[in-house]
C-alpha cells in the first residue's frame, strides 16, 4: 500500500487548464523527485495536495484515507508538510519557540512551559541526529540549519510526507551533503519525501523514483536507476517545435562590452565579450547567476573582482549613474516592482531615466517630450490613449514597451534586458522579440537574461549558460536547443 495516491487530478484557473489527468504516487520511505520545467504544474499539484487549492476533479488517498476535501489543516493533521523554498521561520524567535509556535505547552494561568518544550526539542534533535541548540536565535543560524529546523519542525509533529521545494538553492556543497545525510536516515525510518529540484546531479544522488510533468500533463513515472539525466531532460522539455522564423544573422561590429574574471555577489569568474549588433542570451536556472551578471554590469549589484570595458574604456562598477553615462541601460526583471512608478503617467514614466542624465537643464520641455514620446510610441507600437494616462492602464506588454522607451530615450547603446517577457502574453512576446531584432539591426547591442529557451532561439546570436554562478558554456545560435541548454544549466554532464 502506497503512502500517497493521487489519480486523475484536474485543475484550471479562470478556464485555463493547468493540470489535466495527473496522477502521482509516493511509496513509504522513498524520495520521489517531481520534475518539470517552470510552469509545468508542479506547484499547483503540491498546492492541491496540501489543500491550498481545491481540485476540480480527481482523488487523493493518503495513508489509506480518502481525502475528498483537502484543507490546509487537514493536510497538516494527516502528516503532510510543505517546506517552501523561502523558509517560513521567525528570525527573532528562538529555535524552540519556532517549533512550538501556536502549539505551546502551558502550565496554570496560561503560563508557557518553557522547560518542558526545550527538553522535548533537545531530546528530539538528539534522536534525529540534528545538531541544533533549542535556545539559539533562529536569525543566528546558518541557512542549512534553518532548512534542517524547518524539516525538524515538520517531523516533530509526526509528518509522514515532506515536500521539499528546491531545498538546496541557497546551500553550499557541505550543507547539501548534510541535508542529504539526514534525508537518507529519515527515509530508513519510513518517512517519504517529495523532492522538487532542477539540479540533475542532486536528483540522481538522492531520489529513488521520479515523476515528470510537462505543460500540466503527466509524462512518465519510474525508477531513477532506469533512466539517464539526458532522458529526463528530454522528457521535461518534450519535442516542442522550435521554429526559426524571425531570427536572421546580422553583421557584427566592434567590441562593445568585455568582461574579464568578472566576479561578485552570485557569480564568479565570468569572461564575456559582446560585439555591436549582437544579441547574447544569458541563461540558467533560477539563482544561477545570469540575471545577477546583468545587474552587476548596470552597477546595482556588488562586484568584488574583475574588469569591465565598455567601448574600449574601463568602467568602474557600483554606480548606476556611471553605467548610464557609459551608455548602458537595464530593463530590470519584475516589472511591477522595479520599473513601474504607479503614481506617474506614461510620459513621466518614460522620461524618468532621461531626466537624471540631463540634470543641468532644470526645466521640462513639454512640447519636445511629447514629440519624443510620439516617436517611441510609433517605433515600439505602444497601444495607448494619452501620454497623461496612468501607467497602470496599460497591459503588461505595453507597459514593458514604455520602459523600453524609457531606456532607448537615454541614447544607450548596450541594452541589458532582464526577463523582458515575464508575465506578458504570447502576442506581445512575439512583438518584443521582433523589436529586439530590429534594435540589434539598427546597431544596438543587447544582453538578454532569460529562462525561456524558445526566446533564446528566436532572438539570440549566442547563449551563455550559467550554473551555480559560473559560465559553463557559450553556445552558438545553431547549437541552442532545450536539451543542450538544460544539460548545461543542470550540470547534467557531471553525472554521466
Amino acid at each position, binding site marked *: 500500500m502506497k503512502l500517497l495516491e493521487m489519480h486523475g487530478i484536474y485543475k484550471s484557473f479562470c478556464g485555463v487548464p493547468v493540470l489535466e489527468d495527473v496522477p502521482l504516487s509516493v511509496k513509504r520511505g522513498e524520495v520521489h523527485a517531481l520534475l518539470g520545467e517552470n510552469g509545468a504544474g508542479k506547484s499547483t499539484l503540491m498546492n492541491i495536495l496540501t489543500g491550498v487549492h481545491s481540485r476540480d476533479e480527481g482523488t487523493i488517498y493518503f495513508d489509506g484515507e480518502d481525502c475528498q476535501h483537502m484543507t490546509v489543516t487537514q493536510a497538516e493533521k494527516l502528516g503532510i508538510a510543505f517546506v517552501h523554498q523561502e523558509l517560513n521561520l521567525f528570525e527573532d524567535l528562538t529555535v524552540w519557540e519556532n517549533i512550538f509556535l501556536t502549539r505551546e505547552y502551558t502550565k496554570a494561568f496560561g503560563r508557557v512551559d518553557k522547560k518542558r518544550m526545550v527538553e522535548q526539542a533537545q531530546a528530539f534533535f538528539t534522536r534525529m541526529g540534528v545538531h541544533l541548540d533549542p535556545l539559539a536565535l533562529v536569525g543566528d543560524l546558518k541557512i542549512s540549519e534553518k532548512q534542517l529546523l524547518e524539516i525538524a519542525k515538520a517531523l516533530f509533529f509526526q509528518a509522514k510526507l515532506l515536500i521539499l521545494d528546491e531545498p538546496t538553492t541557497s546551500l553550499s556543497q557541505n550543507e547539501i551533503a548534510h541535508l542529504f545525510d539526514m534525508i537518507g536516515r529519515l527515509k530508513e525510518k519510513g518517512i517519504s519525501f517529495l523532492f522538487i529540484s532542477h539540479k540533475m546531479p542532486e536528483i540522481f544522488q538522492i531520489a529513488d523514483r521520479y515523476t515528470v510533468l510537462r505543460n500540466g500533463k503527466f509524462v512518465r513515472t519510474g525508477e531513477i536507476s532506469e533512466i539517464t539525466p539526458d532522458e529526463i531532460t528530454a522528457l521535461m522539455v518534450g519535442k516542442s517545435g522550435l521554429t526559426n522564423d524571425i531570427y536572421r544573422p546580422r553583421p557584427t561590429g566592434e567590441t562593445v562590452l568585455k568582461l574579464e574574471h568578472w566576479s561578485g555577489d552570485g557569480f564568479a569568474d565570468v569572461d564575456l565579450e559582446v560585439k555591436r549588433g549582437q544579441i547574447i542570451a544569458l541563461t540558467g536556472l533560477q539563482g544561477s547567476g545570469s540575471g545577477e551578471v546583468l545587474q552587476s554590469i548596470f552597477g*546595482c549589484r556588488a562586484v568584488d573582482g574583475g574588469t569591465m570595458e565598455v567601448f574600449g574604456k574601463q568602467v568602474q562598477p557600483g554606480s548606476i549613474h556611471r553605467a548610464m553615462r557609459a551608455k548602458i541601460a537595464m530593463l530590470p526583471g519584475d516589472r511591477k*516592482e522595479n520599473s513601474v512608478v504607479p503614481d506617474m503617467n506614461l510620459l513621466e514614466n518614460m522620461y524618468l531615466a532621461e531626466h537624471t542624465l540631463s540634470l543641468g537643464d532644470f526645466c521640462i520641455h513639454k512640447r519636445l517630450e511629447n514629440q519624443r514620446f510620439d516617436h517611441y510610441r510609433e517605433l515600439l507600437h505602444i497601444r495607448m490613449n*494619452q501620454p*497623461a494616462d496612468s501607467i497602470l492602464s496599460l497591459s503588461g506588454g505595453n507597459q514593458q514597451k514604455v520602459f523600453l522607451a524609457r531606456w532607448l530615450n537615454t541614447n544607450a547603446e548596450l541594452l541589458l534586458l532582464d526577463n523582458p517577457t515575464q508575465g506578458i502574453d504570447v502576442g506581445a512576446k512575439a512583438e518584443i522579440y521582433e523589436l529586439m531584432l530590429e534594435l540589434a539591426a539598427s546597431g544596438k547591442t543587447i544582453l538578454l537574461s532569460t529562462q525561456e529557451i524558445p526566446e533564446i532561439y528566436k532572438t539570440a546570436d549566442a547563449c551563455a549558460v550559467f550554473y551555480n554562478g559560473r559560465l559553463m558554456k557559450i553556445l552558438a545560435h545553431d547549437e541552442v536547443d532545450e536539451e543542450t541548454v538544460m544539460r548545461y544549466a543542470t550540470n547534467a554532464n557531471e553525472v554521466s
Partner: protein
Amino acid sequence: MSKQNRLSPSKLLAQYHYVVVFLVVFAVYAAASSSLTWNGMMNIFRHSAVIGILGLGMGLICLTGEIDLSVGSMLALLSGFSVVVFNLTDSIAVTLLFAVVCGALLGLLNGFLVGVAEMPAFIVTLATMLIYRSIAQYACQNLDKELIGGGSSVYRMITDHNSYQSFYQLGNGRLLTIPVVGIILTVMTLVLVYVTTSTKYGKKLYAVGSNQKAARLAGISVSKIKLSAFVLTGMLAGLGAFLWIVMNASADPATTGNSYEMYAIAAAVLGGISMSGGRGRCLGVLFGAMSYTVIDKIIVALKMDSLINDAIKGVILLLVIFIQVAGPRMRSRLHGKKSV
C-alpha cells in the same frame, strides 16, 4: 489640449477635494460668524502663513515617503535665534538670510541621517525635535539678556532698533488690503507647485515616493533626493520662523511651534498628499492650512472653549482621511470590480 475633455466631474472632485473641504469649512464659518468681513477673511490668510509654509515643506518630504517631526522645534529654534540676530544686527535682510541658512543646516542634519545614513525618518526627526527645542530653551536661559531683548524666558525683539518699524510693517502691513505674509505664502505655494509639477527635480520627488526601487534603477540618487527634500523643508522652516517673528516680534521657545509638526502633517494630508509618498499636490497644502485656520475661527465665533479646538481638528482630519481611504474602496465595490 485634449486633457480637459477627459476630466469628468467625479474625477475633478477627487483631484480637488481639498478645495471642497475648505469650502465646506468656510461655509460653516460664514454661517457661524455674525458678520463676515473682507478683513476677517484676509485674516485667515495671515494666520495660515506659518502653518502653510511648514506644511509645504512637510508636503515635499511626504511626497518622498518620509516624515519630519522636527519642523515645530525648528520653528522655535530658528525664530528665537533670528530674534537674537536681529537684535545684534538691526537688519531685516541679515535676519532673513540667517533664518533660511540656519534652517537649511538643521534640515541637512535630518536629511543626512535619513537619506544617507538610511535611519528611519520617524525616529531621526523625533530625536531632532527634542534636540532643537531643548537648545532653543537652553540658549534663552543662558544667553546675555541684552541679546534676547531683556526678557527672561522669551526672545524679544528690541523695538528701539531703526529697522523695527519696517519689520512691523512686513508682519502687519497690507498690500491692496491683502496681508503681506499671506502674499508670501501664496508666492511660496506657487513656486513649489512649479517645482513639483514642471521641473525634473519635482518628478524625481514623486518617483522616489512612488516606487523607490524603480527610481533607483532609473538612475535617480534616492539619498540625494531625500536629503534635498529635508534641506528645502529646513529652509522653509527658516522662512516660517522669519514670518513668525515679523508677526509676533517675539518667540517663546517653550510654546512657539508647539505641535506645529502635527498641524503641518495635517495640512499636507488635508491637502491630499499621501503619507506613503508619491501622490498629492502642493497646491492642496495651501487649502489644508487655511482649512485649519478657519476651524480656529469657527470655534472663536461660536464662543466655544478653545481647549476643544484640537479635538475638532482631529475629528475633521479623521473624517477626511476616512473618505480618502475608504472612498476608492467603496467606489470599486459599487462598480463591482475586483479589488487589486
